[in-house]
């Protein structure tokens, strides 16, 4: 009896030690997580690489090469998301001939998770955009276009939450003012809403209600403008409280490195844009650790 008790106790003790050890190590392993976000913008139907004779971008770009890169990165880290910040359409005969069919089909093959809508994505009219939606396995995300009275009603989400390795990533989208940029007969009854107001509403919802660990904005507002009254990504970064990353488009801005701005909470926000035509892919890695392990140091940013 005594012996049996001893064995039981020993087993319990080692269970305690074992579980203690296990939970300690599994805790810290659970804490150290890596989320990779890949992004493109303003690809403008550039499916083929530029020819070697091209004066500005010789031998750069091409969807078949991008597919290889994306697959490599996904093999390294399965916790990878792939986004596009709009202006998928228009710029090569692939669009003129096939109306965006090939662009959407290829993005689906590359397993894009979401895209936002650029002004040129209205170039075949709102019906032209709708016509290609069956070819998209990725989400169309925009929060500041009201499509209620258009054929796109129900096809666009204001935001989407991705849970990757236990990390909740809230992704919302913003689009540029269409009036003056796109013919009304193309965008029809699409209503443009103030992107800053919408961003503040959505990020609050994603942070407080949805408890997201990471908040990403897919923006087609444009990087920065001479006129401060024109909404831009740099201003958005400084006006928001919870957005961690703004993936931009529209201005075809080639940045040397992601721009780091300070938000209303005095936290850092990354603003990135990778030029245009699929010449580059942006890669942002977010590392998470348990509160305990993370407390000593703040967020270290390497760009």
């Amino acid at each position, binding site marked *: 009896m*005594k012996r049996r008790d*001893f064995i*039981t*106790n*020993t087993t*319990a*003790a080692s269970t*305690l*030690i074992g*579980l*203690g050890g296990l*939970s300690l190590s599994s805790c810290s392993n659970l*804490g150290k997580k890596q989320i990779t976000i890949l992004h493109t913008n303003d690809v403008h139907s550039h*499916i083929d690489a530029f020819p070697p004779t091209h004066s500005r971008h010789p031998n*750069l*770009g091409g*969807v*078949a*090469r*991008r*597919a290889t*890169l994306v697959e490599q990165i996904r093999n390294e880290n399965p916790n990878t998301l792939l986004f596009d910040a709009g202006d998928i359409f*228009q710029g*090569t005969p*692939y669009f*003129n*001939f096939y109306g965006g069919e*090939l662009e959407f*089909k290829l993005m689906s*093959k590359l397993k894009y998770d979401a895209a936002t809508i650029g002004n040129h994505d209205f*170039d075949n009219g709102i019906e032209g955009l709708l016509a290609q939606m069956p070819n998209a396995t990725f989400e169309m995300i925009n929060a500041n276009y009201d499509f209620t009275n258009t054929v796109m009603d129900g096809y666009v989400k204001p935001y989407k939450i991705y849970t990757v390795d236990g990390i909740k990533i809230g992704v919302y989208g913003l689009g540029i003012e269409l009036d*003056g940029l796109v*013919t009304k007969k193309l965008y029809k009854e699409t209503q443009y809403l103030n992107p800053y107001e919408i961003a503040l509403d959505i990020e609050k919802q994603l942070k407080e209600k949805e408890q997201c*660990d*990471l908040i990403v904005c897919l923006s087609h507002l444009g990087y920065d403008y001479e006129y401060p009254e024109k909404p831009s990504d740099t201003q958005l970064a400084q006006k928001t409280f919870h957005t961690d990353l703004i993936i931009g488009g529209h201005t075809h801005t080639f*940045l040397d*490195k*992601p721009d780091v701005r300070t938000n209303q909470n005095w936290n850092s926000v990354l603003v*990135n844009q*990778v030029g245009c035509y*699929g*010449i*580059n*892919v*942006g*890669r942002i*890695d977010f*590392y*998470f*650790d*348990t*509160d*305990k*392990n*993370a407390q000593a*140091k703040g*967020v*270290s*940013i390497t*760009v």
Partner: protein
Amino acid sequence: MIFTKVNNLPRRLNKDTPVNNLKFKQFVVFTTFCFLMSCKNDTEKLTEIQGKQIPIDSTYAQTDSIETFVEPYRKRINEVLDSTLAYAPKPLLLNDGERTSSMGNLMADIVFEQASPIFNSRSGNTLDFVVLNAGGVRSIISEGNVSARNAYEVMPFENYIEVVELSGSATRELINFVAKSSRRHPVAGIEIVTDKNGALESVNIQGRPFDESRNYYVASSDYLINGGPSVGFFDQIVSRTPTDYLLRNAMIDYFKKVDTLQVVADDRIKQMD
């Protein structure tokens, strides 16, 4: 914390009463449970961000399945685009004249020639002249064979030809805007002479002096017309007549019609010294 409790174990094990054992088992289960729960509840915090840009260059092999998927689309496009439609004996450039360019003049001439009959049949009126924007002509045409591909390069956007009716005073404003601009905005059907400061000296439309007392019909791209006063070209518009004719298709139809592109950077806009 956990290690303190583990260190207590040998002492506790010596007290081998069943009650103590039970308490101990409960304690172990409870502590382990607490620990697992605390682990589960331990929120992840962002500690590090790394950002970089990856150029898509030839070091990345093409994914075969993607390449194979694109191939039939590419083949069809190339068949259509690369068949020769016309010939350019000299390159058509965007900066070869003082105030005009051969490429810009070709564009404006094409719009005039191709849109005139459509406008006439739709409205019963006669087209007076054409104004386009320099920025809307996106490429030169090199010397040699001219194909539909050239039309796509010069005009990649889905812009349509549209005709606006302008009052005499609005027409004067438009002409002034074009004459004073530092850019070579393409025109056709009109000759503008300015002094060295860009002030109008003489304007002829369809060979006749400009008459401010009448309205004029001006063809342009719907992009400029919809852009309104902010773009600079069109402010007060009396009426609009769409042609539903893409600028690019007008170019392709014109290339099919002519053998040789004979156009020079002439003096249709002339600035006196």
